[in-house]
C-alpha cells in the first residue's frame, strides 16, 4: 500500500468538481426519504412510502424500461454511424466531406420541439406507427453530431498511413479499419456511447411527439409535473438508479483491481505499460 499523501492539485480539483456534480444527487437521495411531497427544506421526517408507491407504479417502471432500451439502441447505432462518418471525413480528402460535416452537426442546432413535430408529420405520412423504435431512430439523429465530433477529434492527428501499414501486412482495407483504426479510437467510441446514451435517456421534446404509447421516463415525468404529490416517487426512482449505477461501477472497479492483483501480466497492466 502506498503511503497516504496530500492529493495533487489536479486530484483536488477533480474531487471538488465531483463533489459539485454529486451534491444535487445526494440531496435528491436524502429527500427521497422525506415525509413531505414538497421538495423543500426543512426535512420533515423519515418515510419509505415513496419507494412503496414506486413499486406499485407499473407505468413508471415501464417507462424506465423503454428509456433504457431506446437509449441503448440509439447510442449504439449513433456511435456506429458516427464512426463511419468520422473516418470518412478525417481520412479522405474528397469533395462532399465539408457538406457532410456541416449537415451531420446541424441537428445540434434545431430546437427539438420543431424537429419532433416535423418528424411526427413525416412518420404519419409514411404510415410508420409511433413507437419506441421511432423515437429511438430519431434520437440517433440528435446523437450523431456528438458521436462524429468526439470520434473525429480523436482520429485527427493519427498518422494517415496506419491502415496502409496494416494493408502492407496483408490485411484488406476493411480488416485494417476493424483491427487497427477501431482499437485506436476505442476510448472515443466509449465516450461517444456514454454521451449519446445520456442524451437519449434524458431527451423529452422529440420523444414526447414520437413514442406514442411507449412512454419514456422524461415524457412520463414532464406529464407528471401536473401532480406534485407524485414527484417524490420519481425522485425515489432516480435515487435507485443512482445507487444501482454507483454500485455496479464500484463492483466493476473492484473486479478490475482483483483481476490485476491475481494476474499481474493480465491485459490491463500490460497494455498500460506498453502505452506509457
Amino acid at each position, binding site marked *: 500500500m502506498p503511503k497516504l499523501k496530500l492529493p495533487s492539485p489536479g486530484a483536488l480539483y477533480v474531487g471538488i468538481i465531483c463533489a459539485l*456534480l454529486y451534491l444535487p444527487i445526494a440531496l435528491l437521495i436524502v429527500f427521497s426519504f422525506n415525509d413531505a411531497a414538497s421538495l423543500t427544506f426543512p426535512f420533515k421526517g423519515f418515510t419509505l412510502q415513496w419507494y412503496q408507491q414506486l413499486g406499485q407504479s407499473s407505468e413508471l417502471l415501464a417507462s424506465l424500461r423503454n428509456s433504457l432500451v431506446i437509449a441503448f439502441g440509439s447510442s449504439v447505432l449513433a456511435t456506429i454511424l458516427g464512426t463511419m462518418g468520422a473516418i470518412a471525413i478525417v481520412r479522405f480528402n474528397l469533395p462532399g466531406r465539408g457538406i457532410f460535416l456541416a449537415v451531420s452537426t446541424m441537428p*445540434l442546432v*434545431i430546437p427539438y420541439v*420543431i*424537429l419532433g413535430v416535423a418528424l411526427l408529420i413525416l412518420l404519419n405520412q409514411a404510415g410508420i406507427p409511433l413507437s419506441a423504435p421511432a423515437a429511438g431512430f430519431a434520437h440517433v439523429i440528435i446523437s450523431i453530431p456528438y458521436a462524429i465530433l468526439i470520434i473525429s477529434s480523436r482520429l485527427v492527428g493519427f498518422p494517415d498511413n496506419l491502415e496502409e501499414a496494416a494493408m502492407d501486412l496483408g490485411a484488406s482495407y476493411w480488416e485494417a479499419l476493424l483491427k487497427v483504426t477501431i482499437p485506436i479510437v476505442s476510448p472515443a467510441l466509449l465516450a461517444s456511447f456514454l454521451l449519446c446514451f445520456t442524451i437519449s435517456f434524458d431527451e423529452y421534446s422529440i420523444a414526447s411527439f414520437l413514442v406514442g404509447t411507449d412512454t419514456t421516463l422524461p415524457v412520463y415525468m414532464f406529464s407528471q409535473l401536473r401532480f406534485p404529490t407524485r414527484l417524490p416517487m420519481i425522485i425515489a426512482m432516480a435515487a435507485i438508479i443512482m445507487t444501482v*449505477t454507483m454500485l455496479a461501477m464500484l463492483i466493476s472497479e473492484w473486479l478490475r483491481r482483483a483481476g490485476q492483483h491475481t494476474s499481474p501480466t493480465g491485459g490491463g497492466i500490460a497494455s498500460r505499460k506498453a502505452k506509457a
Partner: protein
Amino acid sequence: MKNSRRFLTLIGLPSIYLFLLFILPVGLMVIFSFREGTTGAARDSFTLDHYITFINSRPFQRLLWQSAGISFLVAVIANSLAYPLAYYLAFQAGSQKNTLMMLLIIPTWTSYLLRIFAWKLILGSTGLLNSVLLLLGVIETLSPILIYSRAAVMVTLIYVWIPFAMLPIFSSLERIDRYLLEAAADLGCTRLEAFLRITLPLSLPGVVAGFFFAFIPTLGEFVTPLLVGGAQGSMYGNLIQDQFMRALNWPMGSVMSLSMLLIVLVFMFLLTRLGPLSDLLGL
C-alpha cells in the same frame, strides 16, 4: 478509384440516414415557415409575412442576441472548467482513468429536470447556500437572492454541460503522443511551455467540439430558464416554445428556429475557417 469507393461506402449509410430523418424534416420546416398559419385555410396559402414580422420584431431579435451571448459565456466557462478535468484524466489519473470518467458521467443519468429541482434546493431562499450564508452572517434574512436570475440559469447550465464538454477534450488529449512531451522536456521546454506549444494546440479540436456541445443546446434551451430563470430569465428557446405550443403558430416558430440555425452555422463557419482550427478539424 479505390479511395472514393471506400469513402462512399463509409459515408453512404450515415448520409442516407441523415437525409431521411433530418434533411426531410428540416425541409418540411422550411415549408412551414412560408405558410400563412397552422390551421384551416391559412395552412394552404403561402406568404413571407412571418419573416417580415421576425425582422421587425425587436423583442425576438434582442433576445436572440442576448441568448447567443449567454450561450457563448456558458460554453466558455463550462469548457474552462472541464479542461483541467480532462487533462487530469488523460495524463495523471493512470489506471483510474475510466473509472473517473464514469464517475463524472453518471450524475448525468439522473434526469436533468430532477437535477434542476435539486439546484433549487441549493439556491432557493430557504436553500442550502442561503442557510450557510445566514449562519456566517453574510446575509441577514432568507430571501431568494441566488435564484430566479440569468446568473442562476448560467450556473445551472454550466453545471449540466461540464461532463459533456469534458468528453471530447479528454478524447483529443488522450491521443497526444507522450513521447512528444518527453522530447519537449528533453529539449529544455518547461512544463508550461510544453503545454502551451504542444498539448493545448493538439487538444483544440476537442475544445471546439466541447464548445459546441455547450453553446448550441444552450441557445435553444427553455426548461432551465423556466425553472430557475425567474421573471427576467426567459431565453430565445422560450419564445420559440411559446410560438409553437401556445400561439400554435408553427410558421413563426419555424422562422425563429431557422434564424437560429443560420446564426450558429455562420458562427461555426467562422470558427472553422478562420485561424488554425480548419486544419485541426480536417476541413
